């Protein structure tokens, strides 16, 4: 499964995405719409670490890296 699909599944399954699954595009604003909130951010970081093998540094824990699925995928790509 591609990284973006794994992230999408995680957001739907674990972060209680409220909209229709097809609305969750690569550019859907995750922070703006509070899909990722203060609890979700650490859930997603530990998911990236455990399931995708990506260690997120404290410096990378910034809104720009988590704004959309595309930006999370970009963060992963930059680290590999």
């Amino acid at each position, binding site marked *: 499964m591609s990284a973006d699909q794994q992230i999408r599944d995680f957001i*739907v*399954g674990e972060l*209680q995405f*409220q909209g229709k699954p097809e609305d969750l595009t690569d550019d859907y604003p995750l*922070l*703006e719409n*509070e899909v*990722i*909130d*203060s*609890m*979700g*951010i650490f859930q997603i970081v530990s998911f990236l670490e455990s399931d995708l093998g990506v260690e997120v540094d*404290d*410096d990378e*824990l*910034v*809104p720009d890296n988590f704004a959309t699925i595309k930006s999370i995928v970009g963060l992963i790509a930059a680290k590999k």
Partner: protein
Amino acid sequence: MNDLLHQLLENSTARTPDHAAIVDGDRSLTYRELDQAANRVANTLIGAGVNRGDRVGVFAQKGIETVVSLYGAMKAGAAYVPIDPASPPVRAAYIVENCGIRHLVTSAKLANAWGELSAAGATTIIAHDADEATAAPHGADLLDAGDINASSDKSPDVAVIDEDLAVMLYTSGSTGQPKGVMLSHRNVMTFVKWAVEEYGITADDKLTQMAPLHFDLSTFDLYGAAFAGATVHMVPRRAIMFPMEIRNLIENNDITVMYAVPSILTMMVDHAKMTVGDLPSLKTILFAGEVFPTKYLSRLMHLVPHVAFANLYGPTETNVCTAYRVPAPPDEDAPPASIGKAIANVDTFVVTDEGTLAEPGTPGELFVRGGSVMKGYWGDAERTARTRIPNPFGGELDDPVYKTGDLVIEEPDGNYTFLGRRDAQIKSRGYRIELGEIETAINAHISVVECAVIAIPDDKITNRIKAVVSAAEDLTRPSLMQFIAERIPKYMIPGEFDIRTETLPKTSTGKIDRKSLESSELEEK
């Protein structure tokens, strides 16, 4: 006069009209600008039929316009009711209906929820960011930026006294619906006056505004700053979750005073890459809302030795009622910081199970009397009467006291130590949560037979929440989570689910055996 919250804004405007009152990212308003903007909203509301004593809903992401709206509502003689923009529409609609909100100050970004809220009774929608192209929900009037700007910027001077309601804060309710805590101007002012003096807040200070507006912590930043003529810096909700963002905001704006829940501060210790002496502008860190894990409090105090720390305690019903200055970094394995002693103009005492005054050293329930004790729960005299009672030791004085439900013990130095709750209310990440409200939401699912929601102690976030559910075979975790997410706020959704087909263990009286569920949880750890 300093009797009303919006007078604080007016007084500071008269003293220092050109001083920065509020900053939000690249935008800021001076005191004069903030006051005039609030007057426009007040006059807009009055023109739309708001009367003294009404409740005005404020349903928007926090920001400059939201703060303008709070003041606008109070200047119109109303109480403002902050409604969490992230809460499920059903819950927001419940609040609108429960306290009879007819006027809602909101944002066009939340327009998809307007229909439901207007059906619940909010028939006048006011949005700073709406224009002629914005559609009003069916059956409602929409007032947009043009209407607000066309209103007078002069104070409407509505007669209000300090016993009138200023704000209603909805908190988690054990029976499944949130309850509205009624706070008068006097209630909030009692805390604000004390806090400004106690922590020496002056016009030169820069305060963070971190807490959501429906959380009582927000009253310190907003009105403490207004009292002192200081500057409040709005911390956007999306920044709260990123420790480096919070750190940058403090450093870039020379913030001097920060008031936050411990879980945010804990996160900063772990993830903000701090070294000793960082955040040099900071003078004071106040924390409240939950127990600060001592290990993290100690580490943070070592990282910022130039900062004074204080623990503020109090349920929403009394705002802050006791406080404790942490004198020096505690040992990492020391017990949690004391909750201190009563603040000015507030009286506290400890009552035993037998109803007698507890001596120091004897545990009991903390009772609070004085200026900060709420007026009651909106529309629920019965519930109010259970916790806001006549002072049993008052003699001829007819003064109400609030039974906090918190068990404390008075130490030899006169400070209180918090021992725990008498009921199923818990804290998680600073949020106050009634486990019963979560259980009600889960039990509403057709496949659920019975459930128990338990709190598992956690050293960073106070408690993790776990739901143990007995259900028909077809119930899956995602479908149950989706179901309850439509009923309760995200922060109440359990992080763990144990869904089983067999029934839950029972006590000899036939109740769900919560203790055995909790203890099996601790054994697994």
